[in-house]
């Protein structure tokens, strides 16, 4: 089925419970080809043009279509709006898959290494879910992306992710990803960091170290107090003490990587102090968080 509007698509999904939506197919078809998934029917989302772009709302919010491709998000006009999301999209796989892979697919797949996810978590993005309307129910609801990911409020059968609301912060934001190689690759760890100067806040999320992006809230609050918000962006001024930036990195790493990281359940009980894997991963996360903060405040 190849609906051309969102309404047709939710209709089609509602009518056949066995149907599965497919956007770029870069995650779905891999599962089908590997025999892990045998969908009864497919609803292709590629022709729904309204979902392939974005619009503005109330001046301060961008409403992104779920059908935005990763490649589209990497273009300069988008990068000027939401730089961290553009950074994430740019590194999310090779050009061939980014040309067709979508924002909606990245969210719905909810992979630990989904690169847009920590950015959406740091931006506190909200998803719109659409469903075929029933009597007394428009079928649409809004859920924070982090609630979708953690399963606090998961996507329900027949629902389609239509829009993602992201605040426009008009301030530097950074996404950094460690992969251990130069070619395209999945993240070993990633850090998204956004500045919200209006609220004098720093928001940060760490990707790939846990099934969902993690927010080190205490570290965020602490570092916001260390930033010289007025010096930010001034020629020659230093918006943060390098020692504080380094401490922030360590703080984020300690908050997001547990001591028992990489240990199996039995040895975790016996283990004293962090495992070697935890030490390594913390080092990586700390470097990423420090560098991300440094770049955002440069």
């Amino acid at each position, binding site marked *: 089925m190849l609906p051309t509007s969102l309404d047709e698509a939710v209709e089609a999904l509602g009518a056949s419970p066995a149907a599965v939506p497919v956007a770029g197919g870069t995650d779905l078809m891999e599962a089908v080809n590997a025999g892990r998934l045998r969908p009864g029917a497919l609803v292709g989302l590629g022709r729904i043009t309204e979902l392939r772009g974005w619009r503005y709302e109330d001046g301060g919010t961008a409403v992104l279509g779920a059908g935005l491709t990763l490649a589209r998000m990497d273009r300069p006009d988008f990068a000027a709006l939401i730089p961290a999301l553009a950074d994430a999209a740019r*590194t999310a796989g090779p050009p061939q898959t980014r040309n067709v892979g979508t924002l909606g697919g990245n969210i719905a797949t909810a992979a630990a290494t989904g690169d847009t996810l920590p950015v959406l978590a740091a931006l506190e993005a909200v998803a719109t879910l659409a469903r075929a309307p029933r009597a007394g129910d428009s079928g649409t609801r809004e859920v924070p992306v982090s609630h979708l990911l953690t399963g606090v409020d998961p996507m329900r059968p027949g629902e389609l992710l239509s829009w993602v609301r992201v605040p426009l912060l008009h301030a530097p934001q950074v996404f950094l*990803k460690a992969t*251990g*190689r*130069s070619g395209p690759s999945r993240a070993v760890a990633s850090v998204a960091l956004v500045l919200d100067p209006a609220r004098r806040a720093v928001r940060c999320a760490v990707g790939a170290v846990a099934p969902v992006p993690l927010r080190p809230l205490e570290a965020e609050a602490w570092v916001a107090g260390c930033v010289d918000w007025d010096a930010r962006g001034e020629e020659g001024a230093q918006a943060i003490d390098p020692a504080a930036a380094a401490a922030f990195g360590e703080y984020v790493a300690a908050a997001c990587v547990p001591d028992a990281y990489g240990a199996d359940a039995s040895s975790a009980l016996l283990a004293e102090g962090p495992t070697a894997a935890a030490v*390594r991963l913390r080092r990586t996360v700390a470097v*990423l968080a420090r*560098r991300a903060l440094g770049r955002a405040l440069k």
Partner: protein
Amino acid sequence: MTAPTDSTATADSTGTGTAPTAEPAERPFGLGSSPLRTDALPKALGIYPYAADLWAEGLLWGAVLRSPHPHARIVSIDTSAALTVPGVHAVLTAADLPAPTVPSDRPVLAAEVVRHQGEPVAAVAADHPDTARLAAAAIVVEYQLLDALTDPEQAFHGPALHPDGNLLRHLPLRTGDPEAVGEVVVEGLYQVGRQDPAPIGAEAGLAVPRPDGGVELHLSSTDPHGDRERTAACLGLETDRVRLVVTGVPGATADREDRSFQATLALLALRTGRPVKMTLTREESFQGHAARHPALLRYRHHADAQGKLVKVEAQILLDGGAYADVSAEVLAAATAFSVGPYVCPNVFVDAWAVRTNNPPAGRMRGEGTLQSCFATESQLDLLAARLGLDPLEIRRRNVLATGDALPTGQAITCPAPVAALLDAVAEVPLPALPLDAPDTEWLLPGGPGGAGDPAAVRRGIGYAVGMAHMLGAEGTDEVSTATVRVSGDHATVICAAVDAGQGFATLARQIVQSVLGVTEVYVAPVDSDQSIAGPSARGRHTWVSGGAVEKAALMVRHQLLAPIAADFGMSVELLSIAEGKITSYDGVLGMPVTEALEGKELWATAQCRPHPTEPLDEAGQGDAFVSIAFCAMRAVVDVDIELGAVRVVDVTVAQDVGRALNPGQIEDRIEAGVAQGVGLALLEDLRSTGGLLANPSFTGYRLPTALDTPEVRIATLLEERDVVATFGAKAVSAAPAVVAPAAVAAAVRAATNLPIGRLPILPEDAVVVLPV
């Protein structure tokens, strides 16, 4: 240098040593020119038919049921559910196999015990690929789990995994005075991971039953006669009942389909009386395809105060996986070249290849030699550091030359220009530091859009030299046969040497063009009806099959020239063929070759058999190798010392090629070897935990992409002819793959001051933890 008119001149050959192309670059064909391979364009365009694209009317699809366990006893196999699946035509287990005529330690289908994850247990033929896979999954196998032996060091004392025992070969090498001691002693422990050949096309083939009860196999085999013989033996058939047609070879740096694949495919066709096609998934290919031997190497080098080697002691352990295959041969190379291209009077090595429940290991570019090259080159760097010598200097003080002996006692009779190669790479200017370029233009470790920070990047420069032998060793009968036929203005080469990417088909054309002056040369497809040419491995076809083609072409040339010479009352030796023309020494005769050939049908068949070798004795002594090619490299890396990300910036190569028969292809082969070597050095490792593969997919098994591979510059293709080799040429593919990992490791060591004792070098191995 003159402006390069040759489009293949990718390298800035900053011109040390002999220039690779003395002849003008626009020469259209023949030896020394660089024609493009005929399959290059179809492969690049995606229209080349691979074996997975084969089709036959009424074909059935094969599928294999594989062991999920690394080690288990098969209690029972119940195929009844699979047989009832509609569309299933045959189900095979070990019980259906004929008695093999030649014993092998690897069963076609496991009978009593499975010894590695993915070992074939049963096979199905059905009318649809999905049906075949579903039916295979419906076979119920009851296993009794056995402890998996996956640590090769435990193989010596662990329970025997096979009636033949766990020791596949022990090779001691002893020469000189065991009591000798040096003024400085350095020790190191080195580890090499499991590199998979990861061929573009996974295993695939088509079997067609023949009316005479035999079977015809269409496969991308790289050893058609060997594969035919092994398959026939497994099927209990006379060899001539199996015909093998080579098709769709994707380019292979290792052996292709294993005997189990071929025999099951053939047997399914024989059982059903229908053509059967089988293509493996990437996961199956990772499980079953022989990978490079993981190795553990312990070395102790003794040197005098000047850095001259006094004694080398080593223990080398190769993990052969579940079955013997070619481990004995790989071990011989690891042992014989365990000192590298250096002179050392006292050498004491013990090397073992052992059986484990890990995935099978086999042949792969530079097998055996690569592992010891990494260890010896690392040791030389250690010595250099200890003595305060430059890494180049310590090598120069020890390099071997023609006339020196290997630790096996064999004197090196071929050219061994090791010192000249080192000088050549050292003379090429280093790549510029991007200090003044804006950060955005500096491709940092971690890649574009990565997390790299210029402040944390350190550059390192490393050198390595290494060697790779050509042709089968230790008494292998090396022989190849070729036929050259000329009809009118075109020629055909018939030779069963498979072009597995090494460029043999192109070379065969060039040889005939050079010898006969004919431009249009066609290389016939390979099948097992042709005479034996042997496997495409160990850098042998340029020598043996190229030699056979040359001889056959020369015989045809004689047939062509003899009557002309007689007409002019001169001997054939006074005529020459060049630029498509037959000319006499006095210039009286000048006849186009095409004119002389008009209406003629000439052909000749010839054989080439290089001088024999002998097995290594119980002290590792003997003339076991035919010839050796050498290679030197300088690698330049950038390391992000906080994240441990490494980017290889540049690799400069000097290689001993004997004679550059096709400089363009040689450069391509060097680039390929460097890419594969960089992959092993930084990325590629098929990890097994408790015998279970952790990353049998291209998401988990990381191959280098264009962004991970460095700029490759050729310092020189050093042409010093090997007088006994065909055209004086040496094999070119293996040596760069052998040396590149060692060179990259040396460069990372230089950038980080860390020991770097294992390959691949993981980010955690390259992180410099600075004191707070």
